[in-house]
């Protein structure tokens, strides 16, 4: 085995990158729940989590501890193997999908190996991403079946029908992008979106020249929300009618695994929307002299954030907040200085724009959840089959026509 490792130093680098990404991702997942609760609370004129730590910043930790210490109940008559398999499948598949996402154009050296940001760079990256998400149905369907209980079974049945129907629209809506880019490789898809129309409009696929992928994007994002079982398409877990749908019988850490899987796939979908339609890590501003200061935008944002944290921390009610928030602010200020340094500044541009766009999509996810009511089941099927699928097929036809006519 050590021989294998010595022959393939790439493996070592990959393992290290996976470990780092895993740590960052799990932290991001925890704080995504905090972010969602805060935003939904503010949409509904509430304060959201406020007790555990300043501004509820320790809430994810408290939640995690609670999940760990809850009693782990297995319903009688449950199919034990499948019952344990389902949450594991959900979480591991949605974490695997992140491995295919490239986070930036830069390369760096690790143990003498040049590697890029992102774990795997496949020729057919996009197809593999869809392959992994298409397996995600099993987690939900099997959880519903194995619980040996009627509400979960109904949730599982609904979810398998829903996810299979929307997967079709999801895959079809992306074909327009593939036609424009001519590749399945996510890095090449981003590279194909470089440049500006008329000097100011970025040539991202959503504004692309022969045929803007507006229809494709709307279909993609709607179908993706349905694929991740989020409101307004969260019928598999509709708490009003099915108690909690497929995870009614799950408690403790197994429930937490479903929870984390859902949020991880939210992040994947946001990354995918960024890459496919919004130019990935490409900056929305043209590289001209008048906009050269844009490279210090990340620094400026971080500095502003740190100033606000310090100011807010001093006025905060509790002693813990008075200490923690200014310290966080100082850390952010240090980061701001660090990424203003010439070498780091170039490296940070790609990831900054990428993460900024991903953050916007995550916000839209939460925003939609806070705004729209749940669909009825027949409405859901009608949207999937009678609206999204024909629209995405029409998008394919229109895009291919536009490309052929544009080439002439």
């Amino acid at each position: 085995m050590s021989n294998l490792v010595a022959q393939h130093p790439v493996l070592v680098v990959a393992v290290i990158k996976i470990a780092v990404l895993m740590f960052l991702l799990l932290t991001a997942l925890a704080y995504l729940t905090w972010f969602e609760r805060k935003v939904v609370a503010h949409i509904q004129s509430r304060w959201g989590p406020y007790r555990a730590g300043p501004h509820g910043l320790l809430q994810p930790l408290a939640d995690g501890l609670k999940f760990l210490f809850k009693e782990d109940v297995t319903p009688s008559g449950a199919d034990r193997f499948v019952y344990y398999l389902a949450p594991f499948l959900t979480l591991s598949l949605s974490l695997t999908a992140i491995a295919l996402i490239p986070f930036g154009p830069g390369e760096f050296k690790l143990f003498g190996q040049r590697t890029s940001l992102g774990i795997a760079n496949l020729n057919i990256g996009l197809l593999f991403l869809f392959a992994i998400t298409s397996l995600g149905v099993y987690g939900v369907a099997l959880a519903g079946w194995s619980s040996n209980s009627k509400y979960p079974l109904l949730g599982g049945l609904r979810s398998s029908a829903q996810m299979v129907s929307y997967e079709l629209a999801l895959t079809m809506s992306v074909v327009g992008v593939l036609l424009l880019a001519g590749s399945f490789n996510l890095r090449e898809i981003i590279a194909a979106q470089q440049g500006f129309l008329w000097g100011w409009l970025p040539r991202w696929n959503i504004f692309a020249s022969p045929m803007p992928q507006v229809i494709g994007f709307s279909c993609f994002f709607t179908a993706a929300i349905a694929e991740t079982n989020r409101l307004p398409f969260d019928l598999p877990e509709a708490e009003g009618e099915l108690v909690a749908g497929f995870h009614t019988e799950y408690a403790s850490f197994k429930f937490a695994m479903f929870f984390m899987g859902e949020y991880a796939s939210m992040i994947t979908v946001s990354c995918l929307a960024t890459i496919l339609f919004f130019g990935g890590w490409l900056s929305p501003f043209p590289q001209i002299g008048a906009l050269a200061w844009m490279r210090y935008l990340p620094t400026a944002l971080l500095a502003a954030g740190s100033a606000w944290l310090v100011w807010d921390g001093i006025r905060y009610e509790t002693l813990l907040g008075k200490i923690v928030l200014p310290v966080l602010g100082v850390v952010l200020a240090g980061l701001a200085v660090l990424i203003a340094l010439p070498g780091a500044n170039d490296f940070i541009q790609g990831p900054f724009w990428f993460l900024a766009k991903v953050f916007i999509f995550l916000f839209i996810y939460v925003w939609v959840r806070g705004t729209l009511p749940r669909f009825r089941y027949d409405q859901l099927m009608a949207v999937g089959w009678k609206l999204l699928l024909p629209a995405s097929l029409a998008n394919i036809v229109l895009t291919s026509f536009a490309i052929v006519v544009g080439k002439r």
Partner: protein
Amino acid sequence: MSLELVLFFVLAAMAIGGAVSLILQRHPIHSALSLIVVMVALAGLYLLLGAEFIAAVQIIVYAGAIMVLFVFVIMLLNAGVEARTNVSRMARYVGLPLGFFLTVELAYWIAGGAGRQAPVSAGPTPTRELARMLFREFVFPFELTSILILIAILGAVVLAKKET
């Protein structure tokens, strides 16, 4: 052993284990899960053979759509454990040896025929080449399959429709 050979044996063991488990499991859901394991293992083998596109399609269509349909139907019909009926004596005493014999014979002849065939070592198949082939040389069969699918959809709808 090279990394490739190790991977091959791991995936082959997964595939055979899944297939055996398909036979031994008594509940249809467990059989379906075993079959999914076989399919994922086969997708891995296709990757080893450099057929990237086919590997992805194998997972998307087979494991992600067809098997979901199977699982869906099993859940919908609430199928229970398979009834342990009296397996006909023919099947037990003739079928099993015959299946075994068929396997050995197939393996012998196929492997014997191709044993001298040196594998063409090349990188992964470019998907572009596959697409060119599909839409130039095989465009007629491709169009025919679309008609086939349309008919299948119609057939499924007509068959599964509840009589009122």
